[in-house]
């Protein structure tokens, strides 16, 4: 087992880059060059471990690995690659003294990368910039070096040019990391302070956390105190990843490793937690801890009502591994029993839903995503509303507050107008516009989260042919003229279709939804009015006319069996229908109505 490593030889860094700019490939090269992984065992893109991440090519859970390079110890700290996990990125960066900024030399810097670089600069981290993929014919390193110099103020002659694929320039990059990124400081004799910057749940070992020791020493067997939760835990094992898990006796200042301390639930080992020793405690926690708050909400229901208990178990298990998901039981007249779930963002929502379906074999239906509104009532009360159908009627409401985002969009200058149009129709307010180069522009908007939640990413992507990139951060709340639109079938509100929108868009939403439902709802024995209403006021109306004919009018001769089976099928179908008042609706109609594109 290794002992404590002298801080002077340690270099802690993350690679900041956009999806597909080559972070995984570069990580693989580094592992090979440092003999951390036998080239024959080299599984491409070693550090991304979860299936879904692999498929989507994004990193959700940070992993970190220690390698030896010349006389130095490099600790590569992986960061989550999506804006939904911004807080986790900031904690990972808090564990580093520097970053490698990796930019595709045929694409240039993207919005999220830029945002993360700003974050690194705020943390006073050293930035080693590298343009990747210089082997590509389309690479234009000169141009993008100019751009990086311009937006980040990094001298262009310090920007390295590499190919993670061929390995060209990677040795120089590692040498530059050693030369430029400062070693960590810290005294091994001080009271222990370690930053917990990632946790995941392992079914055999319980919670495994990634820690960075800031001061003092973390010893195997010690009793630890978690300063934010106040809980104590005994160290079962500390170790490092090479990337295999290797147990060590202790971790000294500046060292990064893993900690196993008999914890059953990642909610008790939150990212950002400060860990100290009970016997020799520090009193002041490290800075920057936040309790990540869900921003996006939706109802999740099993398609088969009998699977409700399975869904509850699945959410419980999932939560062991992802403490940022929240869930509470809710019932819907349309969809039955389910849960209102909260997520860090849209991608997070999609990932959770996909994991529930894939890992737990459930078939689910999700309502349209919503945000959390603050309703100020006429009686002075304040209500937090994350399910639109729970919003009180207009006569009880004084005003409604909604969450805002600060949106940074980077894109080709030719799409400036397109992007501005999109933001404008989404109630955006422009804060800043800057040309990064003659043909790339940065736009900063303040925009209601609710306008982003539905399909903003998709629309932005398709309108800019995929060339625009986007980053966001929460930016407080605003009051606007918001209303709840209910959808009524034969006079009965259908909770799953209620929504909260700006008054100016309410009629349009109402028209679209009623028209959509008219196509989907089968004709009944009576006329079914479909109405969209704000409070008592109808803003759109359609009618599903009563059906006039439903009869086997054909002659099947003596084939009574066939007649009977057709009827049985119809009866079966009726049983599976959901009733809204007297109206019978097949579940599929709900699913289509909730999943149809605008």
């Amino acid at each position, binding site marked *: 087992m290794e002992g404590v490593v002298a801080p002077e030889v340690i270099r802690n860094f993350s690679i900041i880059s956009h999806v597909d700019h080559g972070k995984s490939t570069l990580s693989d090269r580094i592992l090979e060059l440092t003999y951390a992984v036998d080239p024959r065992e080299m599984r491409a893109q070693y550090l991304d471990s979860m299936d879904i991440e692999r498929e989507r090519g994004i990193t959700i859970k940070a992993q970190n690995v220690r390698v030896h390079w010349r006389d130095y110890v490099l600790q590569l700290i992986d960061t989550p690659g999506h804006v939904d996990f911004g807080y986790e990125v900031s904690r990972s960066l808090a564990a580093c003294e520097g970053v490698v900024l990796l930019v595709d030399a045929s694409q240039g810097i993207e919005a999220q990368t830029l945002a993360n670089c700003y974050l690194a600069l705020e943390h006073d981290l050293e930035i080693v910039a590298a343009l990747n993929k210089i082997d590509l014919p389309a690479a234009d390193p000169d141009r993008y070096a100019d751009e990086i110099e311009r937006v980040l103020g990094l001298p262009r002659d310090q920007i390295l040019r590499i190919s993670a694929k061929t390995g060209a320039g990677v040795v120089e990059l590692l040498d530059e990391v050693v030369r430029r990124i400062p070693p960590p400081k810290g005294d091994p004799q001080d009271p222990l302070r370690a930053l917990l910057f990632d946790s995941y749940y392992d079914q055999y070992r319980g919670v495994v956390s990634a820690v960075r020791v800031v001061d003092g020493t973390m010893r195997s067997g010690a009793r630890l105190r978690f300063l934010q939760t106040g809980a104590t835990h005994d160290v079962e094992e500390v170790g490092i990843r090479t990337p295999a898990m290797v147990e060590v006796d202790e971790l000294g200042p500046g060292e990064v490793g893993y900690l196993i301390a008999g914890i059953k639930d990642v909610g008790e080992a939150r990212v950002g937690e400060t860990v100290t020793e009970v016997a020799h405690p520090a009193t002041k926690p490290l800075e920057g801890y936040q309790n990540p708050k869900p921003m996006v909400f939706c109802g999740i229901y099993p398609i088969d009502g009998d699977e409700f208990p399975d869904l509850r178990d699945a959410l419980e298990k999932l939560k062991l591994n992802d403490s940022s998901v929240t869930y509470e039981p809710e019932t819907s007249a349309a969809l039955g029993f389910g849960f209102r779930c909260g997520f860090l963002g849209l991608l997070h929502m999609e990932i959770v839903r996909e994991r529930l379906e894939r890992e737990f074999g459930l078939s689910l239906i999700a309502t349209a995503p919503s945000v959390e509104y603050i309703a100020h009532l006429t009686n002075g009360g304040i209500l937090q509303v994350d399910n639109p159908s729970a919003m009180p009627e207009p006569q009880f409401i004084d005003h409604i507050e909604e969450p805002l985002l600060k949106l940074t969009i980077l894109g080709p200058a030719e799409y400036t107008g397109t992007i501005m149009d999109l933001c404008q129709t989404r109630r955006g307010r422009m804060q800043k516009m800057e040309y990064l180069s003659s043909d790339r522009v940065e736009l900063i908007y303040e925009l209601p989260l609710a306008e982003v939640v539905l399909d903003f990413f998709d629309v932005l992507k398709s309108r800019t042919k995929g060339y625009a990139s986007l980053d966001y951060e929460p930016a407080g709340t605003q009051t606007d003229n918001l209303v709840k639109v209910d959808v009524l079938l034969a006079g009965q509100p259908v909770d799953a279709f209620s929504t909260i929108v700006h008054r100016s868009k309410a009629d349009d939403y109402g028209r679209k939804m009623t028209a959509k439902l008219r196509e989907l709802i089968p004709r009944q024995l009576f006329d079914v009015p479909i109405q969209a209403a704000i409070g008592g006021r109808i803003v759109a109306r359609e009618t599903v006319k009563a059906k006039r004919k439903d*009869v086997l009018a054909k*002659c099947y001769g003596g084939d009574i*069996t066939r007649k*009977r089976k057709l009827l049985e099928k119809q009866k079966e179908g009726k049983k599976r229908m959901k009733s809204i008042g007297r109206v019978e609706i097949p579940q599929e109609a709900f699913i289509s109505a909730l999943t149809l594109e605008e």
Partner: protein
Amino acid sequence: MGEPGPSSGQQLGLYVHIPFCARRCDYCAFATWVGLHHLAGDYTDACLAQLSRAYDSGLGPAATVFFGGGTPSQLPGDELVRLLDAVRREEAAEVTVECNPEDVTVELLSTYASAGVTRISLGVQSLAPQVLTSLGRRHRPETVPRAVGAIGEVGFSSFSVDLIYGARGETDEDWVDTLEGVLSLDPPPPHVSAYALQAEPGTALWRDPERHPDDDVQARRYEIADEVLEAAGLPWYEISNWSRPGHECRHNQNYWRQGEYLGVGCAAHSHLGGRRFWNVRAPERYIAAVAADQSPVAGEERLDFDHRLLESLELAVRTREGVDSSALPDDEMLTGLVARDDDRVVLTLRGRLLANEVACRLRAPARVGFGGAGAIAPDLARATVSRN
């Protein structure tokens, strides 16, 4: 093979399937073939063999006989007579043959009549030429008066005209003209069957969604038909059937009363001794099976008591006889769809068009007083829905 058990003393129906047609109509999903006429002799032989085995195992005489298809009039007259001669019949048996107008001649009908045929069912479908074309029928409207004239000349105790409504290209006026044209034929038919055109999977019509019928249009045409026919003295007695009193098709009524019948020929369905079964679909396979002394039966089902009871209600509810009140619990959804009278429930005009909705709500009455499950004879099931 042992299909039929000894006669249970009920009325027995006998159906003979003739799977030949001159060409296939666009909407047709029946078990019928074009260009297999050369099999007529072998096919008749096979039917005779099936029939004689049935008699060997005790089948009784038929109260009704029905030659359906396909197009029975496409079978040479002497072959049909050869078949009918072998059928044991009750004294006043109803014997129907389905004919296409263009096949009908005085000569053919006389052959039928002397062999004991009492009733002709004529496949007119429409009197509007463009509707016939759109249905893919080969006859012209002009053949109809001639065929009906021949029926009158030869003299049958009853005859019926089959109509189809709701084809694309048909207008309400076409439909009224067809109904009135049919009613003013000489002699006028005492019985009319009118079916809503339906796009069945596998047909030419199915593959052409442009031509699929519209429910609302068909509902209107049905209402027209009911009005015109009723006014002419032909009230409805089953959803798709209207007749002058006394001219109901007894053979079909037997189906709707869950009665017993033997189906002879390919794809023919039987119901005997509480068992429903049906023969292989293709004529060649049918001929081969019978020739090899094997059973031509392709499938069967035997319902338990509750299901039989429900089935009897589902059949009865479509007729003017209706069902017992207890079979249809009060339900506000049924308002306007059924009329309650004494202890019977009968479909209204609107209810006939929505008969499936009504049928879905049928409940077999509780089994009070019916002893052990499954031990009840089928005729008991019938007794619970007996006609008044």
